[in-house]
């Protein structure tokens, strides 16, 4: 069933953005996963996931940011409360200027989770209504979850 869903999603994405809209698609521990470039992750795609009759991914569960040293990635975990199905969407972006369109206009749950990702990894989410630091202080320098972040022990009073 998951394979069918994956094929369906790939097909729908291709109709929307033309062939090769997806970098990679696979089943990850039995759940469909699609990997996109950041330029293909736009409002139309998000609306498709949210509104399409066969998809109906109305519940955004988790937003994760990852620093892969060569590039950055934002992972969205979706769930459909009506059709009871799951989806991973991974959006690749560059490390120099990490930008991923905000999902917040469609799924409000992205509000805090994207702010957290911005706060700890420095990924920009254009379209977010109030993108600012959430867990760290407003004047904090650097992004702690980046792999090249150096913890200043002196400033933290640990040394």
């Amino acid at each position: 069933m998951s394979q069918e869903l994956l094929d369906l999603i790939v097909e729908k994405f291709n109709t929307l953005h033309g062939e090769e809209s997806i970098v990679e698609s696979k089943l990850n521990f039995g759940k469909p996963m699609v990997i996109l470039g950041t330029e293909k992750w736009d409002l139309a795609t998000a609306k498709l996931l949210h509104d399409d009759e066969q998809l109906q991914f109305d519940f955004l569960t988790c937003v994760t940011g990852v620093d892969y040293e060569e590039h950055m990635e934002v992972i969205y975990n979706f769930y459909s409360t009506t059709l009871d199905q799951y989806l991973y969407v991974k959006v690749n972006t560059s490390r120099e200027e990490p930008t991923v369109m905000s999902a917040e206009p469609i799924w409000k749950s992205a509000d805090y989770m994207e702010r957290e990702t911005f706060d700890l990894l420095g990924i920009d989410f254009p379209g977010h209504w109030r993108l600012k630091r959430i867990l760290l202080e407003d004047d904090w320098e650097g992004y702690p979850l980046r792999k090249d972040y150096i913890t200043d022990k002196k400033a933290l009073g640990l040394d």
Partner: protein
Amino acid sequence: MSELKTETMTLNMGPQHPSTHGVFRLQLKVDGETIKEAIPVMGYLHRGSEKLAERFLYSQFIPYTDRLDYLNAMTNNYVYCSAIEELLEWEVPERAEYLRVITMELNRIASHLVWWGTYLLDIGAMSPFLYAFRDRETILDRLNEISGARMTFNYHRIGGVKWDAPEGWIEKVQETVKELHTNIQEFDVLVTGNEIFQARTIGVGILSKEKVINWGLSGPIARGSGVAIDVRKTEPYSIYDRFDFDIPTREEGDVFARYKVRIAEMFESLKIIEQACEQIPEGDIITKKGKRLMMIKPPAGEVYRRAEASKGEIGVYAISNGKNKPYRIKLRRPSFVNVSILQDLLVGESIQNLVAIFGSLDVVLGEVDA
């Protein structure tokens, strides 16, 4: 008489406000007694758990999960361990799964009891708090006997659990369940029908079904608005598919509905514990490989695992690159997502309902700030 000039006032509630049970600030704009804007400010307890995870061996991170939602640490332990087990593709011994379920459900009741007591304390009823903490203490005694700690258990392990149940523990739990059954019923009689309590909670802080889904709210908040999502049923983990229990839901979506859902949930948890205590088999409590902590090295890959904590859906996104330390651990904390609704929910409400609404979300700040 000429018209009085009015203006809005900015009011800071917190960070040291008793009803937050932690450190949390609400920046309010009030027009007289009506809230015009509410901005949650958090991070006072931020300890960088996700960053710490990258510096430790896989097994060394378990105690840190205890400190997220410290009222419901067993589920935190579980969800982290199960994510790593999924990456490793390990099977967990039967007896360990049963011990996990019993401890998680006991912990859920303890967490709901704390909520029940402190919530009523927040809205002005002193005595329920004392009753709730008396019974919570009984549960913590049971958990202490099996794990060696009252709150930060560090009990679940990758591949099983740390200790087997001491002799006679299962029988003791069965006794506790009976006792709790009577006592929680008594709590229900003591408070639920109270006229003042109902006047403060019925029709207050109403959340629609659509809002719940769009804002990603989970747990008793979602189920109080008629959204029947519970990971134990929608995607049964551990051995939850073996037990007979219901998911209590209410349609009203107000504070009272969330209250009723939590009370009903405690009885469902008791049902699960009863069944688990009867079915629990003898056997190993941890896989052989799980005992060699230094050797836990999941193959490169990633997975998102979820579980139903007392506050909602807790999730771990684990990424491994084949080394003995995690490459990235993302913690999806239910309170963090649930608290975001305050920006929307409080607007237009009267200021005397603020504590009643905020309390009904059952937010734990250790979890919000990670």
